[in-house]
């Protein structure tokens, strides 16, 4: 071996040095490990002085490889690569050993910690000598952005980007933008009318010269990589010619078919077979619902066509496809509500006057089915007492263990609206009250003063079986009041179930389509839960709003803006570096067996029929190395993770057995088991 390796052991203050004998480790590496010409220990390697140490040694000692024993490479690999690069050494000739996260912080026995530290340093020294020079490639970033989902988060992200002068394609699968927020009546804790604050934003989107609004459309296919994504969209047929439609609404007026609207009105109201979800819909064009349209059912009617003043109805219209090139993608696909039917003891669907939170939003909404009057299911009676049940389908290990984050505040808002509009008594059954943002606690106080009743306890059941006088014709809510340690039966006229937030039913398919990860419960996974909440592990794909986890409107808006800021910095820098960690097929070794072809989920491997060998498109390769491991002819090498590099790392890690010395342990390790 002719490489000259420099080994640097970081004390990290006392984080490493407190548990590992760093000086001894550096001396040992210098004396025992082949190839090591410089071995030092230093208080803080990541400090500028520590980095200078490396740079000086590269220049003066002619180091050709660098090993830094410090923290996790996820923290400071970039730092030390840059230091190497500054001194003229290819950054990929530097390797880190995680002495802090994998040794000093997790090991109680000092002797064993020292041995493990030696193993990790030895592994890195062995490996680094097989590492190769690599060059990161730079590719241009397209200034166009795709935003998927036009709820409040997607709207915010689109407007920020469009205002900055960049072209945005905003895709929404429903006929109108607005998302869940458009369905709400008021917003907590300020009691602003949701429509009053949302609809101006919606029309901004509709009129913005830089926003290409693609409503009633879905993403079919995504290919490419950061800076250069190719997206295929399906623009579903509305059966309305958008270029001719003026949005006058005569077709809706004349349509003879009434349909229960279980999307926007949550099953509380009706729409026509040709419809706009709500009056302020953006865009203004209606949609013909072919499942319910009389013409599509029976072949006659066409009332809309007869009355349309601009001949904009087209029963023959087909879905069209659109191919877009974008540099970045923001996903803001939102949430679904927990299906309250899954908890039969709460009676939803069986007991008429049990409502879901979304149904109640529509009931309360001035433009809703009752014009904002809070009425029982019969449509005439005002309730005199209302129970609100929190955490329905959330904080419940049978369904979702997470907290849905918005229900406490929505419940307070509902309580206020019920008392204001009907003067009814309101009982709130909660587990914990969590009003934890600006102005929320104050709103809770206000409701306490307004006389809303709070009962701490999860409701056992909602029933109409009368057991005591006074319960006739009522819904009885049975719960344990855990603050007084007693069972209570409270008869009420109306029950509202605060349905929890769940990830979209198709979240996993969407994650797969865009190549990002999601958690077991379907929320999209951010790059870092604290420091990088809107980026994903896939470069160029960002997430905003409730698709990442339950959150309220202010948090969704903040994420929408944050995601657009991240995209803007990508666009303004113009170029993006792509890690050179990709696989390569060596033509002369490839037998053309094609085993690798189907292994790649990114379709980066093609078969060259002429040469009868497989070829990797390195722009598409993400560097996972699965094909490398699978190739029976070992014709594929994975840059920076080659077989040679990993074999030598194994050999290095097992320094104490390979050389036959044996690990000398005084006592069997009795480490504490994690709590």
């Amino acid at each position, binding site marked *: 071996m002719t490489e000259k390796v420099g080994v640097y052991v970081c004390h990290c203050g006392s984080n490493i040095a407190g548990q590992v004998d760093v000086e001894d480790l550096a001396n040992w590496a210098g004396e025992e490990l082949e190839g090591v010409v410089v071995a030092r220990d230093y208080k803080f390697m990541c400090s500028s002085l520590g980095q200078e140490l490396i740079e000086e040694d590269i220049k003066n000692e002619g180091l050709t490889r660098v090993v830094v024993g410090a923290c*996790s*490479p*996820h*923290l400071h690999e970039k730092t030390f690569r840059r230091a190497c690069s500054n001194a003229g050494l290819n950054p990929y000739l530097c390797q880190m050993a*995680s002495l*802090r*996260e*994998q040794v000093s*912080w*997790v*090991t109680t*026995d000092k002797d*064993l910690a020292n041995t*493990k530290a030696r193993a*990790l340093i030895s*592994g890195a020294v062995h490996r680094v000598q097989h590492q190769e020079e690599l060059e990161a490639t730079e590719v241009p970033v397209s200034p166009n952005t795709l935003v998927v989902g036009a709820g409040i988060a997607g709207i915010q992200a689109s407007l920020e980007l469009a205002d900055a002068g960049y072209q945005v394609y905003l895709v929404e699968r429903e006929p109108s933008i607005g998302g869940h927020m458009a369905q709400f009546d008021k917003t907590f804790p300020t009691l602003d009318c949701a429509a009053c604050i949302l609809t101006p934003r919606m029309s901004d989107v509709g009129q913005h010269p830089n926003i290409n609004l693609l409503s009633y459309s879905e993403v079919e296919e995504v290919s490419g990589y950061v800076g250069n994504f190719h997206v295929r969209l399906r623009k579903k047929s509305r059966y309305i010619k958008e270029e001719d439609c003026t949005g006058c609404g005569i077709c809706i007026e004349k349509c003879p078919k009434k349909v229960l609207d279980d999307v926007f009105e949550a099953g509380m109201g009706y729409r026509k077979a040709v419809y706009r979800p709500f009056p302020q819909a953006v865009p203004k064009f209606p949609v013909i619902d072919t499942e319910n349209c009389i013409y599509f059912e029976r072949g006659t009617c066409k009332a809309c066509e007869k009355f349309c003043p601009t001949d904009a109805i087209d029963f023959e219209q087909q879905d069209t496809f659109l191919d877009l090139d974008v540099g970045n993608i923001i996903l803001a696909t939102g949430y679904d509500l927990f299906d309250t039917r899954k908890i039969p003891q709460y009676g939803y669907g069986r007991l008429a006057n049990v409502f879901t939170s979304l149904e109640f939003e529509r009931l309360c909404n001035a433009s809703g089915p009752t014009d904002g009057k809070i009425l029982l299911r019969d449509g005439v009676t005002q309730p005199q007492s209302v129970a609100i049940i929190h955490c329905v389908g959330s904080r419940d290990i049978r369904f979702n263990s997470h907290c849905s984050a918005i229900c406490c505040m929505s419940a307070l808002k509902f309580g206020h609206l019920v008392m204001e509009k009907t003067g009814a008594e309101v009982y709130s059954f909660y587990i914990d009250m969590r009003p934890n943002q600006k102005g929320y606690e104050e709103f809770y106080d206000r409701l306490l003063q307004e006389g809303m009743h709070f009962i701490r306890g999860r409701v056992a059941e909602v029933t109409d079986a009368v057991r005591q006088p006074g319960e006739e014709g009522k819904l009885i809510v049975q719960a344990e009041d855990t603050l007084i340690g007693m069972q209570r039966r409270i008869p009420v006229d109306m029950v509202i179930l605060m349905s929890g937030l769940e990830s979209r039913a198709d979240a996993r398919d969407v994650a*797969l389509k865009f190549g990002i*990860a*999601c*958690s*077991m419960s379907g929320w999209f*996974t951010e790059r870092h*839960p604290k420091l990088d909440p809107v980026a994903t*592990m*896939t470069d160029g794909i960002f997430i905003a709003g409730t698709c990442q986890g339950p959150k309220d409107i202010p948090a969704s808006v903040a994420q929408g803006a944050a995601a657009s800021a991240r995209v803007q910095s990508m666009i303004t820098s113009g170029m993006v570096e792509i890690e050179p*960690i990709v696989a390569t097929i060596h033509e002369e070794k490839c*037998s053309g067996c094609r085993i690798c072809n189907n292994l790649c*989920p990114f379709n980066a491997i093609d078969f060259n029929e002429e040469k009868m060998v497989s070829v990797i498109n390195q722009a598409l390769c993400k*560097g996972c*190395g*699965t094909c*490398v*491991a*699978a190739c*029976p*002819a*070992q014709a594929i090498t*994975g840059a920076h*993770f080659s*077989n040679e590099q*990993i*074999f030598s*790392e*194994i*050999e290095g*890690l*097992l320094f*104490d*057995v*390979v050389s*036959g010395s*044996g*690990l*000398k*342990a005084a006592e*069997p*390790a009795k*480490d504490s*088991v*994690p709590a």
Partner: protein
Amino acid sequence: MNTETFEPKIVGFLCNWCSYRAADLAGTARIKYQPNVRIIRVMCSGRVDPSFVLKALALGADGVMIAGCHPGECHYLEQNYKAMRRFQMLKHTLRSFGIEEDRVRLQWASAAEGVQLAEAINDMIEKVRALGPLNWSGKYAENGEVEAAIERLAEEHAEAMEVPA
């Protein structure tokens, strides 16, 4: 016979995105686990060539852990499923060599599961400790050809795959 207390050596192959981050988290959260595991970072559990495991065992490791993202959470979409399939075949092969099942382990650990990863490592170490040393390396020392044979395996495999023209 060696009278020293037996300290098993486990080589861990951890994927860059979930399990290696779980190990980072175990560190940050100061979760203590036994130091008998030595970790190698790979980009994906799908990168783990069965020959890595054989090599580690041949060189003297007493056990090997492969850790990756949970099914459905793979950074590379579905490559951990490929690791899972490969692991089943590997176990089959190891059984025919007479290597006990508990010496190799496939562990899912998300980036948030530092505690779970540490527990799995402790659990595996205890199981391997109970099994005692894997004496492959001893045999290898007696007969230097074993390693050469393992290295030849891939070539022989490739030859066997060649279709005569």
